[in-house]
């Protein structure tokens, strides 16, 4: 039998990989992909606890996370398209018009 801790540790590892990607990558689409990794790590935690407690609520919450991820992808990619049209680059360091 697999202990609950293993799932939580795996989720923590995936979450940290997502955070590191957010720090390392400079392409804005890669940043969105890192956010997806983090959301998936949280989903795994939800499902593991739901399975261990025998309650369905955790799986329902994964649904809402999925919906938020879809909305975030749609709006984020529209922003990416608008940014590429105006600035001809996706590097987040180059879009520094509002920066002091």
């Amino acid at each position: 039998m697999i202990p609950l801790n293993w799932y939580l540790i795996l989720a923590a590892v995936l979450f940290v990989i997502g955070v590191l990607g957010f720090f390392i990558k400079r392409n804005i689409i890669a940043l969105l992909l890192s956010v997806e990794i983090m959301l998936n790590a949280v989903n795994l935690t939800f499902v593991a606890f739901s399975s261990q407690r025998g309650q369905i609520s955790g799986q329902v919450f994964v649904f809402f996370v999925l919906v938020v991820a879809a909305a975030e992808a749609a709006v984020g990619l529209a922003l990416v398209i608008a940014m590429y049209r105006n600035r001809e680059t996706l590097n987040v360091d180059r879009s520094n018009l509002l920066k002091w």
Partner: protein
Amino acid sequence: MIEILFFFFAALAVGAAINVLVQKHVLYSALSLIVLLSSMSGLFILLRADFLAVIQVIVYAGAIMVLFVFVIMLLNLPEDEDGADRLRWLKFLGIPLGLFFLFLTVITLWNVERQDIVEAQMAGTPELIGRSLFTDYLLPFEATSLLILIALMGAVVFAKKDL
């Protein structure tokens, strides 16, 4: 047997996640993320969340990632643009801090007393999830529809050429 499957899917997920960061071209990162989502679906099946596993493949790996790949191919990006790296020091600060956070989390989780997941206690069938969604979580469900409507309009407004 189930341990072998767990380690297989876990190794696949971690490897794909690292590959997302390593790849230079963002299209390969997106394709690697699809591998991560599929292995996550396998983990959901191990946890008896059958319906979520199917949804994970259809909605996440199917719809959302197709959207990503579509936009990447639409923009036809160059290989990798480094250039102005004014935030490069973030890498030297971010990686040690991230690994330190991971260390703390794993140490904490390791010391928690072992709790086995009782097998076949409850399968996440569509019936159970739907019943909970339309009774206990009816208000968040309706709010979700509003969120999707706003996201739809926002995406159209942002991507439109001149409004």
